[in-house]
């Protein structure tokens, strides 16, 4: 599904198809009832209608039409540009919704009469399934609804949801027991207990989310709307009172001009782009394959103070890797390495691979040179916690330290298991945060393999970056405190929770929240659910359980815990974009005053021409230029609204200084230039 690839927003933005559809939607959105949700643009529409009435009157009476006509046209354009921005933002989500909807087409379900007997089922439409029904899904079938696997194991293609075509294993019990309606079973079979009613499944919610159908104003958006309404009211008062003040000064201002002044002053720029910014923020998350269940969660992500990060997969690579092989006295390094390789030849785990890699690097031992004829491999088992190889009477083993000692003892009860050097190496490795792996041949301990958690390159710098933004990082790990502390210091996190149980996480989150901090975390297991629900931003992995997905307020379709850092960035960018455009919009008004005020009163008080600092050609061209600038700036800023302002992490003071310079001072200066250029153009083409 191509829409889920992480395409850069630039190319998608310009698609002519999308623009065409958005243009059509922009017109439907003119419906005043719908537009009332956006008070600034609603006011603009009302006054545009008022000017239209005046224009019609002028037509009937035979007054000159050009000026009022142009004002009227540009007022309607202002409204249209605003609705277009919203339609465009929605359109990008809708394209994704369409492809999701294809996965939801009439699915047939095999409903079991008796959950225990998967042979006896009725074929019903997926729409008729209720919560608690049991269905069987076999290879090639679409899973008819969200549910929990009660029996079976199968590989499932979840491309319809995640865009990832490699199949995943789903099985009953454990943390991989959730299935999503619309995904396909590729092999084997599953018995699934349905947990979501038709119409409220994950897929349905996803469609609604990307379409923006369930969009509600988020808390910050609401606060900003209030500010904009207040500004609109202030300017309404300023403009309406001008009717009286102007009459006093014998400078009666015609209504279309008053309307032009009003529309240029009220914050139409941010008013027109506000909802587009919000939709685009959600959309940016979707592009990162993260589904936010509410806009509130996206905003909260920007506010996060504390990040709870799982060690494995986020801070370190998922697997430990061999970093050194320490022989006991009397064994050469090369010998120990060779036997370590031979004991790992059949070990397909990442740890086993890493031993081969290490031996090749340090001693030039390849699997070919180490190969043994007639070897029979002993696979790792949870019971023995050992793996290795038997060849002739040689029994080569590697495994957990206590297990390897037990093995040596079992082969030769008189073997020396208390070798000081061996224990010293084990001790040293454990203290450094690593995992020691014993190596033995028959009744003889040969050495210790040092397995190390490898911290991802660059992660320390990212944490430093987060710290500058005021975000604390906390590593969550099941390791013992010694190991955890070692890795924590290597990765540069601010704190860690060792031997973490789900209760520990929950308690930690609560403590942080009591101090007024917002906490984000990610998790996948059912036992993560309470913590996910408690966190202000809880990102559940798509691969996780249904309970976890229900508890979180975001779902990461890639199941990549590192995403949390990106999610915070997206949240911040959303708020920054709103602030930047609001500041810009308000700063713009200064120039508009200098364009319109002299134009309004120059007939009555010619000396006020002194305020015409831009040297605009005539009162009419000045007013028109301001109105045109005001309309065009909305279109010009649509890409910025959809893309978001440039986001570079840094200290709040630095970020603010930069944005204030760009959008505050820039907002003051730009319209002076823009209005002057439009004025020159208008005069050149003879429109004013």
């Amino acid at each position, binding site marked *: 599904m191509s829409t889920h690839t992480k395409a850069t927003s630039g190319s998608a933005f310009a698609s002519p198809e999308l623009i065409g559809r958005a243009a059509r939607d922009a017109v439907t959105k003119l419906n005043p009832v719908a537009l009332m949700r956006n008070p600034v643009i609603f006011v603009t529409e009302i006054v545009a209608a008022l000017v239209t009435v005046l224009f019609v009157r002028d037509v009937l009476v035979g007054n000159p039409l050009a000026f009022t006509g142009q004002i009227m046209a540009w007022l309607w354009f202002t409204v249209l540009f605003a609705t277009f921005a919203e339609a465009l933002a929605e359109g990008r989500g809708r394209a994704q919704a369409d492809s999701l909807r294809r996965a939801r087409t009439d699915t047939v379900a095999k409903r079991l009469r008796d959950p225990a007997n998967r042979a006896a089922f009725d074929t019903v439409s997926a729409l008729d399934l209720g919560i608690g029904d049991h269905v069987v899904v076999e290879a090639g079938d679409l899973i008819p609804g969200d549910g929990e696997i009660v029996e079976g194991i199968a590989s499932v293609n979840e491309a319809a949801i995640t865009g990832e075509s490699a199949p995943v294993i789903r099985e009953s019990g454990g943390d991989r027991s959730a299935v999503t309606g619309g995904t396909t079973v590729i092999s084997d079979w599953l018995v699934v207990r349905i947990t979501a009613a038709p119409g409220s499944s994950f897929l349905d919610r996803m469609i609604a989310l990307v379409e923006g159908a369930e969009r509600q104003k988020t808390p910050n958006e609401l606060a900003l709307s209030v500010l904009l309404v207040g500004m609109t009211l202030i300017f309404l008062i300023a403009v309406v009172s001008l009717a009286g003040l102007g009459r*006093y000064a014998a400078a009666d201002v015609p209504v279309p001009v008053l309307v032009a002044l009003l529309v240029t002053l009220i914050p139409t720029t941010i008013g027109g782009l506000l909802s587009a910014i919000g939709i685009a923020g959600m959309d940016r998350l979707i592009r990162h394959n993260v589904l936010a269940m509410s806009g509130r969660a996206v905003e909260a992500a*920007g*506010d996060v*103070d504390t990040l709870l990060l799982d060690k494995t997969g986020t801070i370190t690579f998922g697997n430990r890797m061999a970093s050194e092989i320490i022989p006991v006295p009397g064994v050469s390094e090369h010998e120990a390495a060779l036997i370590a390789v031979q004991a790992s030849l059949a070990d397909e785990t990442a740890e086993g691979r890493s031993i081969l890699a290490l031996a090749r690097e340090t001693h030039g031992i390849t699997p070919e040179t180490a190969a043994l004829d007639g070897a029979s491999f002993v696979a790792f088992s949870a019971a023995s916690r050992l793996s290795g190889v038997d060849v002739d009477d040689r029994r080569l083993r590697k495994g957990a330290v206590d297990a390897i000692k037990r093995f040596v003892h079992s082969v030769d009860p008189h073997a020396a298991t208390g070798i000081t050097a061996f224990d010293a190496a084990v001790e040293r490795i454990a203290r450094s945060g690593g995992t020691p792996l014993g190596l033995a041949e028959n009744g003889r301990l040969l050495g210790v393999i040092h397995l190390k958690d490898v911290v991802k390159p660059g992660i320390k710098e990212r944490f430093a970056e987060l710290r500058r933004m005021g975000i604390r990082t906390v590593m969550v790990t099941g390791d013992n405190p010694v190991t955890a502390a070692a890795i924590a210091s290597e990765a540069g996190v601010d704190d860690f929770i060792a031997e973490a149980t789900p209760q520990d996480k929950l308690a930690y989150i609560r403590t942080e929240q009591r101090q007024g*901090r917002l906490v984000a975390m990610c998790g996948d297991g059912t036992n993560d659910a309470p913590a996910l629900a408690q966190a202000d931003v809880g990102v559940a992995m798509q691969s996780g359980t249904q309970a976890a997905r229900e508890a979180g307020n975001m779902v990461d379709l890639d199941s990549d815990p590192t995403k949390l850092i990106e999610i915070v960035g997206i949240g911040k960018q959303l708020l920054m974009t709103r*602030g930047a455009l609001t500041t810009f919009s308000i700063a713009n008004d200064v120039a508009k005053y200098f364009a319109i005020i002299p134009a309004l009163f120059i007939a009555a*008080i010619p000396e006020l021409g002194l305020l015409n600092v831009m040297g605009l050609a005539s009162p009419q061209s000045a007013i028109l230029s301001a109105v045109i600038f005001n309309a065009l700036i909305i279109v010009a800023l649509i890409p910025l609204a959809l893309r978001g302002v440039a986001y570079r992490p840094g200290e709040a003071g630095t970020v*603010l200084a930069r944005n204030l310079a760009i959008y505050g001072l820039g907002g003051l200066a730009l319209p002076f230039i823009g209005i002057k250029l439009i004025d020159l153009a208008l005069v050149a083409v003879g429109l004013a």
Partner: protein
Amino acid sequence: MTVQGWLQIAIILALVLVAAVPLGAYMARVFAGERTMLSALLAPVERVLYRLAGVDPAREQGALGYTLAMLAFNAAGVVLLYALLRLQGLLPFNPLGFAGVAPDLAFNTAVSFVTNTNWQAYGGETTMSLFSQMAGLTVQNFLSAATGLALAVALVRAFARSGAVTVGNFFVDMTRSVLYVLLPLAVVTALVQVAMGVPQTLGAATSATTLEGAQQVIAMGPVASQMAIKQLGTNGGGFFNVNAAHPFENPSPLSNALEIWQMLVISTALIFAFGRLIGDRRQARALVAAIGLILVAGIAITYWAEAAGTPSLVAAGIDPAGGNMEGKEVRFGLAASAMFAAVTTGLSDGGVNAMHGSFTPLGGMVPLFLIQLGEILPGGVGSGLYGLLVMAILAVFVAGLMVGRTPEYLGKKIEAKEVKMAMLAILILPTAILGFSGVAAVLPTALAGLGNAGPHGLSEILYAYSSAAGNNGSAFGGLSANSPWWNTTLGLAMLLGRFAYIVPMMAIAGSLAAKTRLTASTGTFPTHGPLFVGLMVGIILILGGLQFFPALALGPIAEQVQMLAGKTF
């Protein structure tokens, strides 16, 4: 402009800062309920007052209860003062035998003094008995200032507390404001003023024979006691009609300096007290820096405009080096008059030592614009601080988003409720000023009161409503405001400007008090550095400018450009 003039200005400002820092520390202790150096003397008095009034000083009120108590107290104040003024003829200490005050004027005056406006549509020495001046007006001078202080302290507590339901006890804050802050300062400075030549007597008037041999009746009275609190409490209502230009109210350049100092000192000290009460004095310094910048700019522009004079004065053969001395007292000169004008309007004092209407149009626009900025530089006693904090909330909200977090101020998240209430409060000023002005500008009844035609007349209208809605009380001059239209609408504007602002402001206090106070991190927008100072200045000027620029363009700006072109009215 002269070096000497600038030195005068600099010295007075420095003296204000020198006094405001320790006074702020003292006030912080007073409002935190801690022991102060005056406690030994005043604490017993305080306890007796609480017992008499049946107030339990330990019981605090929520924001709503606090507001209702304040409203009830002030409503009672209006009714009592109205009754007192109407019944003046029957009451004692009326040596000149003035009759009761007319209903519309009594309403206007009662509202005026209760709202800390002190707009005077009457001449004090020809209308008010000594009893009205002392028991009515001077009492309200104390109480209105104390009301402002109490409200500001309630808002500061809302910031300082975390997850709180109460913001203080209104009656306790009132009592402490009067007893520990206003009375001691008023007593001391009144005595200094008496030493400088301000009369304090129950005798009504004295007569003198002038050089031409005519008899002149010179009005007198308990002037110093009213003067002191009028300036300290940023009330501004003079004993005499010409206010602080009168030699008995303001005899010398030294007394003038003292009066400017009096106006500024409590409001400035309150900002420092705020810094201590929230436990971060850098925040206070940033606010003082921001308002200081605008205020000094205001003084500079007025001073420059007055020193530059006008082309008509030059044409009349007057030495342009003297500047525009029309409407100014020679004993104060340009610098002290310009400074007084900017300070009295940057504050909400409203006392005047020169006629703002006789300033050059630009010089007169500064006081007008400073009122329209909301009188937060540093504003009225208490009202200045809460106005400033509401402005800071808006500044932080608009720009703070640009750091990528829900904006916070002083550790409190600024959300929809706060923004809504702040906008409601901000709306009051343009509604009252522009709304009433727009109507008055076309209403013959209103226009009948104007003293001048053309843009200057419009400035008179704008100034009157700005002064009333901003609770300033200074007059531009030229407007005959003692008519039913002006008395009533200005009275309404005063009520709106005071209480319609306070109610949403206190709603903010209630909402903030309940919030958890967050600790700042490096991700929080710092509100104590130069960046925030610049932001505050920008927001105050742009927000104020955007609201009033069209009106100002038709008034003082039009007059200025026409004056430069040689046109007069």
